[in-house]
């Protein structure tokens, strides 16, 4: 798995900036760790050396920390500066990571939402559940990715190489041990992964199956209660749970192996570095100052790699969320190119004719509505009637022009405005159309209103808009009797004032108020074809 999604860097400004900042802070951290290690070596060497120290045991790297640090006072003062700086860098790192994380999440969320909005109603509807989960919860997985994982990745990319280079300058043999073990870490982890893959896949499948069954049983509790049969399944819940536990432990025994390999290799390498240096010190093959510096630096070379392993899940979840978002953003939109028929003609006073209008269902098995033909004159109410699922709402949506037709023509005073391959310019058409869908939305502030209240507000907006074509979808649902009568009266008044009203309904009172009733029926695709 890639540790970084290139699309995040390329397309999300805050992400790109933050990755640069994190890399910079990582490099700064590596310098501070280095300074701390060299300072400790300088300070401890005089008390451990059997003879007074003469040569600089730190070689070229001694330039970072002056020899004067061998005196306790100077050493402690410098150490205090390093500690203060490390504290500040830690604070800054955490602060910036949180800030960048939420910015990235916000920006991706806004991109996904405007993408969905631009794709049109059908496109969104078929994916609503997935997209809603992604937008409201899924993208939040990017936060731990930015706060926990990326900084460790930056440290692994900066601290580890810096430490290896320094150790190489100090004591090449220790550097060889470190460099030789580093590639073993991924190699062994991959090996363990390959050997155990089939086993863990089998386990995962069992775990998922058992989990689904348990939840299925639990989901059915209200049903069992209503039939007086709720007492039995507790034992079955336990049995399934135990089986799931055994399967999970089986998979964990395998999954934790790679973690063990990682820890084993890294700590063992540090131990070997210490032991070899110990015997070389006895021979006088290495100085105490050098040995102390290497002893402190060697574990630091491995630490970021171990931490990257620890935060692997943060990485996997975060990248999966980013991938889901980018897949959505880059996916084929399925929108058909429609040629422009120019600006829409004026609707007021003109008859709207619908000829053979048909829209395929998302699964493509039916046309709902099947070919639909009617004419709606100004000053009349046309009711669309038919069982649920036959395409009444879809017909209204198609008349707004937002949902492309699959066949047929919509014309105003004989001039086509909507065809399967062409449409008039959207703004000029929509400015003349008032549409009230079922369960109107009206924006986030209206979400706290009851369905009935929203319905009334949405209807009022349509009635007062003065737009010549009014499309109402089940306008009387969710309303009490008095409001229903009021809505029907206002609908009638609107038509009498010259508007073209098309209403989808199954209510007898609404049908009675209509000038014409059109039956809407769906057809199977093969019949239509």
């Amino acid at each position, binding site marked *: 798995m890639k540790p970084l999604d290139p699309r995040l860097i390329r397309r999300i400004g805050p992400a790109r900036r933050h990755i640069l900042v994190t890399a910079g802070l990582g490099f700064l951290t590596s310098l501070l760790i280095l300074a701390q290690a060299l300072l*400790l070596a300088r300070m401890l060497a005089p*008390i451990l*050396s059997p003879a007074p120290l003469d040569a600089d045991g730190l070689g070229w790297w001694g330039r970072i920390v002056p020899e004067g640090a061998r005196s*306790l006072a100077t050493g402690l003062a410098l*150490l205090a500066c*390093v500690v203060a700086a490390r*504290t*500040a860098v830690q604070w800054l790192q*955490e602060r910036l990571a*949180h800030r960048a994380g*939420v910015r990235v999440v*916000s920006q991706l*969320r*806004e991109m996904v*939402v405007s993408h969905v*909005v631009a794709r049109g109603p059908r496109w*969104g509807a078929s994916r609503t559940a997935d997209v*809603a989960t992604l*937008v*409201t919860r899924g993208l939040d997985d990017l936060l731990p990715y930015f706060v926990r994982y990326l900084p460790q990745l930056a440290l692994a990319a900066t601290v580890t190489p810096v430490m290896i280079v320094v150790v190489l300058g100090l004591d090449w043999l220790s550097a060889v041990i470190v460099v030789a073990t580093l590639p073993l870490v991924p190699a062994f982890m991959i090996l363990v992964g390959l050997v155990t893959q089939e086993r863990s896949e089998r386990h995962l499948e069992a775990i998922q199956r058992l989990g*689904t069954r348990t*939840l*299925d049983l*639990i989901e059915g*509790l*209200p*049903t*069992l209660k209503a*039939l*007086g*049969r*709720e007492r039995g399944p507790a034992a079955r*819940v*336990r049995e399934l749970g135990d089986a799931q536990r055994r399967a999970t432990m089986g998979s964990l025994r395998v999954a*934790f192996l790679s*973690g063990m390999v990682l*820890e*084993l290799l890294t700590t*063992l390498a540090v*131990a070997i570095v*210490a*032991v070899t240096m*110990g*015997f070389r*010190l006895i021979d006088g093959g290495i100085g*105490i100052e050098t*040995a*102390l510096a290497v*002893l*402190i630096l060697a574990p630091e070379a491995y630490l970021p790699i171990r931490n990257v392993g620890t935060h692997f899940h943060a990485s996997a979840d975060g990248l999966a969320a980013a991938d889901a978002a980018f897949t959505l953003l880059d996916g084929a939109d399925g929108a058909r190119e429609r040629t422009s028929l120019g600006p829409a003609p004026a609707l007021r006073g003109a008859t709207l004719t619908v000829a053979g209008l048909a829209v395929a269902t998302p699964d493509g098995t039916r046309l709902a509505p099947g070919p639909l033909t009617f004419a709606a004159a100004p000053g009349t109410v046309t009711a669309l009637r038919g069982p649920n699922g036959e395409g009444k709402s879809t017909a209204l*949506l198609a008349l707004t022009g*937002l949902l492309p037709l699959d066949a047929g023509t919509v014309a105003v005073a004989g001039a086509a405005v909507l065809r399967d391959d062409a449409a008039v310019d959207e703004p000029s058409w*929509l400015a003349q159309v008032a549409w009230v869908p079922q369960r109107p*939305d*009206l924006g*986030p502030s209206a979400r706290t209103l009851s*369905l009935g209240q929203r319905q009334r507000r949405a209807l009022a907006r349509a009635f007062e808009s003065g737009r010549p074509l009014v499309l109402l979808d089940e306008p009387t*649902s*969710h309303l*009490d009797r008095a409001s229903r009568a009021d809505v029907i009266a206002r609908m009638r008044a609107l038509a009498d004032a010259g508007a073209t009203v098309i209403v989808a309904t199954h209510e007898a009172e609404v049908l009675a108020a209509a000038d014409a009733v059109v039956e809407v029926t769906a057809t199977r695709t093969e019949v239509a074809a």
Partner: protein
Amino acid sequence: MSARPESDPTVLRAAIRDTGVTRWAIARAILAGTMALGSAVGLAAVSAWLIAKAAQMPSPADVALAATVVRFFGISRGVFRYVERLASHDAALRGVVTLRERAYDRLARSGARTVLGLRRGDIVARMGADLDAIGDAVVRAVIPVGVAVTVSAIAVAIAGALIPLAGLALGVALILAGVVPAVLTARSARIAAVAGTRARAEVTAAALSAMDGAAEHRVWGTLDEADAALAGADRDAEHAHELAARPAAWAAGAQALFQGLAVIALVALGVLAVRSGDLDGPSAAVVALLPLAAFEAMGAVPAAVQQYFRSAAAARRLAELTAEDAPEPAAPARMTGASSLVLDGLSVAWPGAEPTRPVTATVDAGAVLAVVGRSGVGKTTLLTTLAGALPPAAGTATLGGTEVSPALTGTTIAMTAEDAHVFGTTVLENLRVARGDVTEDEAWVALALVGLDAWVRGLPAGIHTELGPGGRTVSGGERRRLLLARTSLVPAPVLLIDEPAEHLDDSGASALRAMVSRMTAEGRTVVLVTHDLSLLDLADAVVSLDD
């Protein structure tokens, strides 16, 4: 958000006690964890001693033991860490299994009103993810904190044995490095729980409104407003997160600070002790380098605090699920014989909702009552009340002269809800939900009654075919008929059927007719909720909830 966060610790403690995870299991995992991180401390201490000792150029035999110990610690860390992870996960998983069984049992025993009022998503979230979160409290909070305490104690003991003052300094620094970030993380988690949750809700509403209402926004030209609302909600969420991130950043800084201060103090103490001749060089090196390894365990504390808050919230939600009403009396006697169901001025409502208009009707044994009304008017609520699961808002519902009560739910008055569950098991077992001893022959009769026998015969394994979890592999109409067949096998004398017409075609409606006439012929009382006015000729009485 709950108004009583202060009760969280008790609720979580009770939940953890309910998992039945023993002290011994936790102690075992802490012991393994201590051996793992203790190995890291040991490796740092012994390798410092080895290097310092070797610098004095002794004979190789003098450091041979230390070299072996260093190699041992180099291996033991990884091995014990593996043991610890297995031990802690095993304890937690066993705990979750026990807790799930107990929670299920408690929920099954709690009142009909609680159970029938459950929403499907809630019950799955509580018994699934929330239970797992309580188990995570063991793995990610209790055990890491336990390990941090024991490993710190070991490090303090080593430093203190060599230089008492160094032990004290290291102890103070370790406590501060644990407590200060813990307090700051707790504050961060509280801010996130209050401001963060509110801001998230706003973002969710704005995002869903922008997407669900996209077509409306385009028609009415309010796209920009919807975008601005989402951007505004996003900015507010960023601000809320910023507030929570501030203490978290200080927590990260505090850890670095206290570790650094410990390094400074112990180096100074070690060097001074050697200079004054109180300590040999190798021991001073151990003291000076100990803080580099001793703080690793404390590093897990902030994550443990965050886990604690997540688990406590999960435990609270779980407790609220079952806390609502007192458990019903055990083993209610099934009422038998012919008795009339009487609705007298009955008005129903879930708590806080608008009551329905009062209705009055009498249904004798073997008769059918139909309940009609527009959607959302309270027909299902009426059925739930008649089932005894919900007290009437006004008026009474009596069966054979006694008021219906939760004791009658299921046993005497059985109900098949509109969203009744089809289990992920065989067709036969799904029918046996009605009665455990349904024979295969009885099952076929019931299937034939609702016209589903041909469909079942066409399934790969007939009546023994497994249906997908939640019955998602069957169509709406088949599901309805299967539920009708199940209802026909229920032994209760009163059957309440919530029957939306949507999924039933004409032949489905005739299946319903056949089933209802069979039930009435057996002398059972049927109450039917329906949208389909053509079914009303089935009914001996009709009540409408429309005003």
